[in-house]
C-alpha cells in the first residue's frame, strides 16, 4: 500500500483533487488484486539478487572469516596456525596502543562529527539566501568535499609544512617562529581541520533540505512575531532533524574507521625511497587512530589473528554506537509525516 502511494506521487502532482480521487478509485479497482498474479514472487528476488548475493559473498563471509581468524595465531603466510581461543582479545586488553588508539579515535569522532555537522548546517543557512553570486560560494564550499582524500591530505601537508608551508610563512611575517604543525602536539588538530575542510558535503545535503521547507511556513511565523533565531530553532531545525540524523549516523561510522589521512600525514611519506606510509611507526601519536593500529598488525607485523580481533572489536563498538544513535532518534528527530507514508520530498 504505502509503496503505491509513493509511485503515484510524481504522476499525480498536477491533477486536481477530485480527478485524483476518481483516478485513484479506478486504479484500485482495476489493478489491486490482479497485480499479484502477473508474475511470480521470484521475479523480485531475481532482481534484488545482486545485492543479496553480493552482500553475503563480499561482506558477510569476509567478516565471519575474520571472526574465525581472530581466534587463531594466523600470520597470513604459513599454514602452521592453531586456535588460541580468546588470547588475541586478552592481548588487546593489555595493549597500550589499543587503548590509546581507541581513545584518539573517540576524541576524533566526538570533535569532528558535531563540528562538521554544525558547520555544514551553518554554511547551508548562510548560502540559502538570495544573494548575488551565491552559487559561486556554494561551489567553493562544496568543492573540497569532492576532492579525493589523497589529494586533500597531500595539500594539507604542503600547507602546514614546517619549513615551506603557507601557514608558517604567513606567521613569520608577524615574527612567529616555525611551528611543526604536522608533528605531535599539533598533528591531531591538523587532522581535525582536514576533516572540517570537507564539511561542504553536509552543506549540500542540508541546503537541499532547507529548500524543501515551505516559504509560507516561515512567513507565517514571521507574521506571528517570531525572530530569526526562533524560526530556525522551532521550524527549520525540527524539519531538518531527520536529515541531520542520517548525516550524524553516517559521519560517525565514517570517522571511526578513518585510516588514510593519518597514514598519509605521517612525516615519513615521500621522504626518501620507497615512501613511508606502510610504516605506521612514523605516524604521530596524535594521529595514531585505531585503524592505523589495525593496519599495522596486518601489513607490518603479520599478526593477522590479532588484527582480526582488533577489527571485530571496532566492528562491535561501531554497531553498538550506531544502535544507540538509532535508538536515541525518537528523542530528537522530528518526523512530519508517518515514516512509511511518503518516501522523501525531493
Amino acid at each position, binding site marked *: 500500500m504505502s*509503496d503505491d502511494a509513493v*509511485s*503515484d*506521487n*510524481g*504522476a499525480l502532482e498536477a491533477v486536481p483533487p477530485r480527478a485524483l480521487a476518481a483516478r485513484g478509485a479506478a486504479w484500485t479497482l482495476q489493478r489491486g488484486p490482479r497485480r499479484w498474479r*502477473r*508474475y511470480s514472487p*521470484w*521475479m*523480485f528476488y531475481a*532482481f*534484488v539478487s*545482486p*545485492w543479496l548475493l*553480493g*552482500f553475503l*559473498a563480499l*561482506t558477510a563471509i*569476509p*567478516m565471519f*572469516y575474520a571472526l574465525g*581468524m581472530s581466534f587463531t595465531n594466523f600470520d*597470513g603466510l604459513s599454514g602452521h596456525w592453531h586456535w588460541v581461543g580468546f588470547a588475541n582479545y586478552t592481548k588487546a586488553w593489555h595493549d597500550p596502543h589499543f587503548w590509546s588508539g581507541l581513545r584518539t579515535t573517540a576524541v576524533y569522532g566526538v570533535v569532528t562529527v558535531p563540528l562538521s555537522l554544525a558547520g555544514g548546517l551553518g554554511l547551508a543557512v548562510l548560502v540559502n*539566501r538570495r*544573494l548575488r553570486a551565491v552559487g559561486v560560494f556554494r561551489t*567553493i*564550499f562544496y*568543492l573540497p568535499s*569532492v*576532492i*579525493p582524500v*589523497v*589529494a586533500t591530505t*597531500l*595539500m594539507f601537508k*604542503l*600547507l602546514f609544512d614546517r619549513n615551506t608551508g*603557507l601557514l608558517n610563512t604567513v606567521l*613569520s611575517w608577524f615574527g612567529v617562529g616555525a611551528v611543526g604543525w604536522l608533528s605531535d602536539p599539533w598533528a591531531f588538530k591538523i587532522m581535525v581541520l582536514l576533516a572540517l575542510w570537507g564539511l*561542504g*558535503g553536509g552543506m*549540500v545535503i542540508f*541546503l*537541499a533540505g532547507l529548500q524543501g521547507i515551505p516559504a509560507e511556513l516561515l512567513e507565517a511565523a514571521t507574521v506571528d512575531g517570531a525572530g530569526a533565531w526562533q524560526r530556525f530553532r522551532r521550524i527549520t531545525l525540527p524539519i531538518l532533524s531527520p536529515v541531520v540524523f*542520517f548525516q550524524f*549516523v*553516517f559521519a560517525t561510522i565514517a570517522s571511526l574507521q578513518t585510516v588514510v589521512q593519518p597514514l*598519509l600525514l605521517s612525516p615519513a611519506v*615521500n621522504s626518501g625511497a620507497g*615512501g613511508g*606510509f606502510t610504516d605506521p611507526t612514523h605516524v604521530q601519536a596524535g594521529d595514531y587512530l585505531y585503524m592505523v593500529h589495525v*593496519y599495522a598488525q*596486518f601489513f607490518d607485523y603479520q599478526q*593477522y589473528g590479532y588484527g*582480526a580481533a582488533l*577489527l571485530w572489536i571496532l566492528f562491535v563498538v*561501531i554497531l553498538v554506537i550506531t544502535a544507540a544513535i538509532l535508538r536515541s532518534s525518537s528523542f530528537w528527530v522530528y518526523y512530519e509525516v508517518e515514516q512509511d507514508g511518503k*518516501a*522523501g520530498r525531493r
Partner: protein
Amino acid sequence: MSGGGMTFGTRADQRRSRFLTYTGLILLAALFVAPVAWNFLYSLKSAAESASINVHLLPQHAQWGTYKQALTLIDFWQYLWNTLLIAVPYATLITITSALVGFGFARLRARGRSGLFVLMLATSMVPQILTVIPTYVLFTRIHLVNTRWPWVLWGLAASPFLAFLFRQFFASLPAELEDAAILDGCGWLRIFARIFLPLSKPVLATSFILSFTWVWGDFFTPEIFLNNDKTTLAVAMGNGYTDPVTDTPLSNVLAAGTMFYVLPVLIVFFLAQRSFVRGVATTGLKG
C-alpha cells in the same frame, strides 16, 4: 560601498548587513580555496625553491616544467590506464546491478520485500573500510589479489546507496508505464531494459559518475590489493615523486601531479554538478 552610507534607517541597515555577509563569505571562501591555491603555486616552484626555507608566496619564476616532470618521472599514463581499467568496469557494472535492485524494490512485490529493503539500508551502514582487510585476506587465498577481479565482483554486488537512488527514482514513475507493456506480453527484464532504463538516463549518469569517482579517489583498497605495476593514480600520488638521481623527494612535482590527479574530478564536477548534488541530496535526505 565603502563607508559612504546614504541615509540611516532600514535601507542602510540592510546594506550594512549585506556588506558583513559578503565579507564573511569571502573570508570563508578564501580559507576553503587556500589549500588548492597553495598547492597550485607550489607546483610552479623549482625544486630548489620548493625546498628552500626562504619562502615566497608566489614562485620566483613559474616553472611549468614541473607538470611535464609529473607525467614523465613516474609512469603516469600507466597509472591512469590502471585506474580506468578498474573504474570503468566497476562503475558500469555497479550502475546496472544497482538499477536492477532498485527496480526490484520499486516495482515488484514479494513476501519480505519491505524487510529486505530495511536490511539493505542497514547494510549501507556496515563499516566499509573494516570489511576491506578481511576481504583482502580471503582473496589472497583464492588468488584474486593483484588482479582486477575484486572490482568486477564489487561491481556485480550492487551498492545499497545507489540501489536506493534508483529505487527512489523508479518509484516516482507512474504505474501506467508497465501496464501497457504487460498487456502486450512483455517480460519484466524487457520492461526494465526497454522502458525504465531509457527514462532513467539522468540517474544512470549520476550513478556512473559517483561510482567512478569512488574508485578514482580510493587509496586504501588499491594500496593493499594491487602491486605497483597494477595500482592506481591515487596510490601513485600517495607514493610521491623522487629525484631519479639523488632520490630526494620532489614535493613541487608531487604538487603538479596532484593537480593532474584532481583536475578530472573537478571537470566532471563542473560538467555534472547537478548529478553530484542530486545523488548526494536524494540519498542524504532519507535513508
